[in-house]
């Protein structure tokens, strides 16, 4: 269980994290989603005590991180897989962590096997590791103390498709056994496939949160037609809210805040032929995310 309450972090006049509140529950994978620079990493660093908060509380397993007597046994943390001494071997990095936690070195071998690092690979120095291998090593470090809570910042970065699949299964299994998993990503689709709950952050503020089902269900209907203006007029007359679909910038598709059946009836009465009519699963989330991203990324200008 992770609880974040009214968390704020200011750097001078800049507010990196702005009154963030959310809870990551046991037995669930919570996706922490936001564009680059939205405040995900800062929030996670505050949770584990690496960055002091300006105000607000972050609790893991009911306690402040600094109050955990042996945090490695309760919280698995992976913030940056590259933050390791380049001159240490993978096995040595795990051994140091295991010793700090007071675990036997047998656990090191178990973890190396769990993340599929061969003895030859674990004997190599980390400077020669690919990003994917570093991520596996980081996951091994996080899992070492059999913690109940995992806090992972962009763990899929650098993994190949098979690795991403492996990570997904591993985290799923972890949550299914009652663990709390919080993982961040800037990729909606990556997080959509694994998360049960979503917390969406943009420019330091939470813009949406809830179960994945809730957030996807609220998306309404996607309707596609070659005669957008007529359909738009009919929708206005029927008192239905709609927006231009971000995917095509409204050229031939609209997203309507109503169920598909009602939209179909409106279209029929207006005599508009439809090319497509379906529940916009996740399209609302995607559009919200695109908007968020557009505000903070250069690509936004061209979109």
């Amino acid at each position, binding site marked *: 269980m992770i609880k974040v309450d009214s968390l704020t972090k200011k750097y001078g006049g800049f507010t990196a994290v702005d009154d963030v509140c959310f809870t990551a529950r046991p037995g669930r994978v919570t996706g922490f989603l936001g564009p680059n620079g939205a405040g995900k990493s800062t929030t996670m660093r505050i949770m584990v005590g*690496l960055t002091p908060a300006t105000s607000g509380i972050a609790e893991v397993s009911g306690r402040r991180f*600094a109050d955990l007597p*042996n945090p490695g046994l309760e919280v698995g943390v992976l913030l940056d897989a590259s933050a390791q*001494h380049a001159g240490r071997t993978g096995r*040595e990095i795990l051994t140091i962590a295991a010793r*700090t*936690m007071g675990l036997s070195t047998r656990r090191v071998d178990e973890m190396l096997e769990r993340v599929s690092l061969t003895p030859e690979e674990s004997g190599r120095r980390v400077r020669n590791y690919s990003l994917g291998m570093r991520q596996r090593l980081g996951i091994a470090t996080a899992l070492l103390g059999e913690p109940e809570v995992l806090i992972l910042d962009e763990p899929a970065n650098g993994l190949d498709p098979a690795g991403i699949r492996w990570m997904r299964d591993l985290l799923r299994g972890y949550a299914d056994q*009652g663990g709390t998993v919080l993982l961040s990503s800037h990729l909606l689709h990556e997080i959509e496939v694994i998360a049960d709950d979503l917390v969406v952050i943009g420019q330091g503020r939470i813009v949406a949160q*809830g179960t994945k089902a809730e957030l996807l269900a609220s998306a309404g209907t996607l309707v596609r037609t070659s005669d957008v203006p007529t359909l738009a007029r009919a929708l206005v007359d029927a008192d239905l809210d709609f927006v231009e679909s971000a995917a095509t910038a409204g050229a031939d598709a609209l997203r309507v805040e109503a169920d598909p059946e009602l939209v179909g009836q409106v279209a029929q009465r207006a005599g508009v032929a439809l090319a497509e009519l379906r529940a916009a699963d996740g399209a609302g989330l995607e559009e919200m995310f695109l908007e968020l991203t557009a505000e903070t990324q250069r690509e936004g200008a061209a979109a």
Partner: protein
Amino acid sequence: MTATTVETLEPEAVRAARPAPTRIPMSRIMGVELRKSFDTRSGFWLMASIGILAVIATSATILFAPDDELTYESFATAIGFPMAVLLPIIAALSVTSEWSQRTGLTSFTLVPHRGRVIVAKLGVTIGVGVVSMLVAAAIGALGNVVGTAITGTDTVWNVSVAELAYIILASVLGMLVGFTLGVLMRSSAAAVVGYFVYGFALPPLSMMLAASQDWWDRLQPWVDFYYAQGSLYEGQVSGTEWAHLGVAGLIWLVVPLTIGLWSVLRSEVK
């Protein structure tokens, strides 16, 4: 939110029940820190170079010192110089590598009280310093025996145990300056440069100033830590000289280390 339904289901435990975790003992943190100073190639060779340089300095003394100067003091002096350079650098790097190699991200999440990690490093640093000096002294003693056997002269042991203890103390104080600079700067390059400025650039400047300015001549033993340590190498330390060491140590170690620790505890580890 309607996510409450899942909470009523009692999730199976991630693992079997186990006793509540206990606080990580200081001895374990020190053990890990000691291991961390040896387990990289650079760390290993830095440590090994203590022995290697002691052997080189001893060999050079046997080869180049005049026969009548082949005494234990000559060996001790020859070995002392590389130690004075090496040990403070080892001390500084033990701290700065957490930042320059970014290992602090792991170290300070596994032990969230940074003060404990720094104190453990301090303990390990002092231990490494004392052991290194004893090893160096033993290598020097061996050189003294072997050297005089080669030349056929008498083996002279003109360094007392008390004198040796003072020299070790001086080396540890030098290490602590390096350590303090490491905590204060948190950057390997800055700390090493800082130590060279302290150990090699400031002393001659201070001597020059003392020669020409009367007020500095009187103040120097109290504020020039390097100068104050001179008495430790002379084998006898008077009460006033201990006071000099205490006051200068306060200025050069206690105050900056306190400021450094305060800033380490408050800083952001990235």
